[in-house]
């Protein structure tokens, strides 16, 4: 991965929008127009990189964002189809291959619709204008008399029409319009409307092809024994038993390449994956674990983090002299909140098929979140030019950030290069859970005070390992990590503390590999922020909803909170033993708030109901916004009440779903989702629903039991 020294937002701008501008830059449309003869009768025309129309009338839209379940296969092509005046039923959608002309192609940061909102619509509008002009020329009529409708250009006065296929050849010869006119949102036919996802049928009949389903001729299978302590070195390999297993072809020393380290590993190659797995289990490998027994420990990590809590961190922002004001305050509070390391644990484990061919070309089939990144990583690793590499992105059986980390892909590259054959690597669930990368565990040290009955001072000290630092080697030692600090800043949460406020950061390093996990740091720091606001509200003697309404200086936040208050019947009398808690968090340009109701039961609580409200600005499909928010409720609750990842003496303590539990259907509470239509520019949809879940639960538990929970995960059956 690249060495990036920029904020995440800048990063998206530079690798995303700028290069996107180049690919789609209006003047480059014409240069990019490609004419391919697929047979003598049919000419395939690429009007711009995202639209291919052939003279037989087939229309293909290229989706530049891999679909891991978040619905990008529908969302992004819908933006284009809306402007092109065509329905998705009329087109074929294919996935982009990582090449530069498609710009940023990474599904992550809930960025697909919000970053492509304008450029992809412009691509569609430009094509529509070129097709319209071609028809007008053909008929020798003014352009203004022609309009696009359902894949045809219609001449209004006469009613005659020509299909896009009939016009594609002419259109591809035209200049690209400099400023194609985008549709008025009130004329949208697809965007903002309920439409069934056209990829759902293949996801219910067994026909959908995920990475793990790819077979190529001549392929061999690999199962890889990774270092139990993540970074150990292979001292010796006894493969006698492994080689006796029928189907096992070879045992190869290999490597796992992570951004911050490369670790040694041993691969068993076989004619089928079951044989490879049996071979792996029969291997006897001696590892030199160096000092990792001592250094790889989550207990040690959190001890360091808590020790840092009361020391000064690096300031990201400060208003007033917080420390002085805090020291002299009469009514004040101080508390530390903790969130664990978490595995992504998508049900489809990491896998890839790679063929490093004898002619120097490389072909890849893999469930990856970012083919553009993968292309850069593969080219750097194998030392090949991008034009020699063909990436086929398959469907992803879940990812949540995990499949933007290419260790498993580079393993397959290494093995295919060594074996000179196509190789399919499949990780076991144990590989997935014991090896990471993980969401980093984090500590929030909170301080606050109350003046004249109002919350007047607030300090969030964020402590832990940095993704920018470990994965991108881009964190300066004297700067507050900008990716996470911005998320917890008062600029983001819109809380206005009258007297003083501060956001600070301390980096605690670890060798445990980390990466983005659904909603990233918001999933960690929402817990500290929103539970502590609740604590301060109680200190001020205020209702938690009212306290937030008073603090927050933003109309969209207020509207979301008002909607939540209404839908949750906030303030109405509760049954005996019941409690309600709320939380609100803005992430990826969307505001999400949640109310959870719990009932006291023995030493714990049961979760009765979850209500979430989201303002994500313009959206493509309201049903998908709801689906993603439902998913965030389940994943957020799992993070709050199921297992964390821990390392003891250098080894992960969890290995499979019996120790790293995922919420099950019988544990899933009733849920309701409401969308606030703000008409703002699109925000994210895939992640923003998650951050308020855990704190809403923590606050509900406090309301029902009087117990203030500060460390996740919670055992809700037995609250300490």
């Amino acid at each position, binding site marked *: 991965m690249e060495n990036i020294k920029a904020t995440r937002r800048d990063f998206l701008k530079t690798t995303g929008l700028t290069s996107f501008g180049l690919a789609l830059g209006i003047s480059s449309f014409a240069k990019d127009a490609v004419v391919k003869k697929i047979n003598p009768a049919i000419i395939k025309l690429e009007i711009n990189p995202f639209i291919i129309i052939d003279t037989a009338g087939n229309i293909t839209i290229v989706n530049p964002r891999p679909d891991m379940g978040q619905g990008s296969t529908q969302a992004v092509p819908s933006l284009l189809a809306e402007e092109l005046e065509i329905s998705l039923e009329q087109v074929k959608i294919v996935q982009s291959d990582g090449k530069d002309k498609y710009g940023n192609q990474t599904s992550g940061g809930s960025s697909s619709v919000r970053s492509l909102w304008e450029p992809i619509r412009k691509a569609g509008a430009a094509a529509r204008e070129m097709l319209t002009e071609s028809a007008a020329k053909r008929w020798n009529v003014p352009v203004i008399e022609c309009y696009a409708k359902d894949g045809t250009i219609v001449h209004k006065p006469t009613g005659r029409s020509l299909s896009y296929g009939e016009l594609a050849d002419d259109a591809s010869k035209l200049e690209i319009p400099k400023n194609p006119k985008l549709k008025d949102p009130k004329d949208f036919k697809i965007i903002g409307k309920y439409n069934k996802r056209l990829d759902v049928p293949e996801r219910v009949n067994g026909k959908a092809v995920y990475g*793990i389903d790819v077979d190529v001729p001549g392929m061999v299978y690999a199962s890889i024994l990774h270092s139990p302590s993540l970074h150990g070195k292979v001292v010796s390999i006894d493969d006698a038993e492994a080689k006796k297993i029928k189907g096992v072809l070879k045992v190869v020393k290999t490597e796992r390449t992570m951004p911050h380290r490369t670790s040694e590993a041993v691969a068993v190659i076989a004619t089928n994956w079951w044989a490879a797995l049996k071979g792996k289990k029969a291997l006897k490998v001696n590892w030199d674990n160096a000092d990792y027994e001592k250094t790889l420990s989550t207990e040690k990590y959190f001890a360091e983090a808590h020790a840092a809590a009361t020391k000064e961190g690096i300031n990201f922002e400060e208003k007033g002299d917080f420390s002085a004001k805090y020291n002299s305050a009469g009514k004040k509070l101080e508390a530390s909140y903790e969130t664990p390391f978490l595995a992504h644990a998508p049900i489809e484990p990491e896998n890839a098929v790679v063929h490093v061919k004898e002619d120097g070309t490389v072909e890849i089939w893999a469930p990856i979140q970012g083919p553009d990144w993968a292309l850069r990583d593969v080219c750097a690793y194998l030392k090949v030019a991008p034009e020699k590499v063909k990436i086929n992105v398959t*469907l992803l059986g879940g990812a949540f950030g995990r499949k933007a980390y290419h260790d498993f892909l580079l393993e397959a590259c290494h093995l295919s290069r060594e074996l000179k054959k196509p190789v399919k690597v499949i990780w076991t669930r144990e590989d997935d859970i014991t090896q990471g990368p993980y969401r980093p565990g984090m500590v929030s040290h909170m301080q606050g005070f109350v003046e004249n009955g109002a919350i007047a001072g607030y300090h969030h000290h964020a402590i832990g390992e940095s993704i920018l630092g470990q994965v991108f080697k881009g964190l300066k030692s004297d700067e507050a990590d900008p990716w996470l600090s911005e998320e917890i800043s008062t600029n983001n949460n819109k809380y206005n503390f009258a007297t003083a406020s501060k956001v600070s950061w301390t980096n605690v390093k670890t060798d445990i590999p980390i990466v983005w996990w659904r909603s990233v740091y918001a999933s960690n720091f929402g817990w500290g922020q929103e539970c502590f606001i609740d604590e301060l509200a109680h200190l001020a003697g205020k209702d938690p909803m009212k306290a937030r309404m008073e603090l927050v200086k933003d109309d969209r936040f207020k509207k979301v909170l008002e909607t939540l208050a209404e839908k949750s019947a906030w303030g109405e009398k509760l049954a005996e033993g019941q409690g309600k808690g709320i939380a609100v968090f803005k992430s990826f340009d969307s505001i999400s708030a949640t109310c959870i109701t719990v009932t006291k039961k023995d030493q714990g609580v049961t979760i009765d109901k979850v209500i979430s409200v989201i303002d994500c600005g313009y959206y493509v499909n309201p*049903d998908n916004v709801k689906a993603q928010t439902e998913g965030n409720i389940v994943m957020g609750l799992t993070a709050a009440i199921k297992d964390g990842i821990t390392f003891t003496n250098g080894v992960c303590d969890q290995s*499979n779903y019996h120790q790293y539990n995922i919420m099950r259907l019988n544990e899933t509470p009733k849920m309701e989702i409401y969308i606030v239509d703000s008409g703002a520019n699109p925000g994210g949809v895939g992640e923003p629903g998650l951050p308020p879940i855990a704190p809403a639960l923590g606050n509900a538990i406090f309301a029902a039991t009087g117990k203030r929970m500060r460390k996740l995960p919670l055992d809700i059956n037995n609250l300490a």
Partner: protein
Amino acid sequence: MAIFNLTVNNKKVKVDVEPDMPLLWVVRDFVDLKGTKFGCGMTLCGACTIHLDGQPTRSCQTPVSSVGKNTKITTIEGIGNGKLHAIQQAWIEEQVPQCGYCQSGQIMSAVALLKSNPSPSDQDIDSAMSGNLCRCGTYDRIRKAIHRAADTIKVSEKGIGKN
């Protein structure tokens, strides 16, 4: 290696594999039916659920040698007999899948549930479906889709308009 004669989705197939190979890998890599998924290998997640004589079974821990040649093996590809099963139709109507990877297993469990219990309560659904994990978190829609499918099957059995 040994030869096994199997009946998969009403078709006779012959495979030459190790006797301890789980049915999951036999079906996926030797019968080339990829709809059945690998998730955990320990019967914890249910992604590999198939039917043996109509009974939902975790294929990741079912050795091929334990399956008789007359045992009817049904996978997601065979559940609808060439059409969409009412459960699959309900899954589309409710837009259940997100990534969809676990849904083959979910659907196999749901089909078996409705066969034994045409009018399941929420509690019945809880106990029949809690062995199937979904990391995307589609459980609420799974519940709704099972109720919808149950209603659809009842209506079609009664015949619309007969009441």
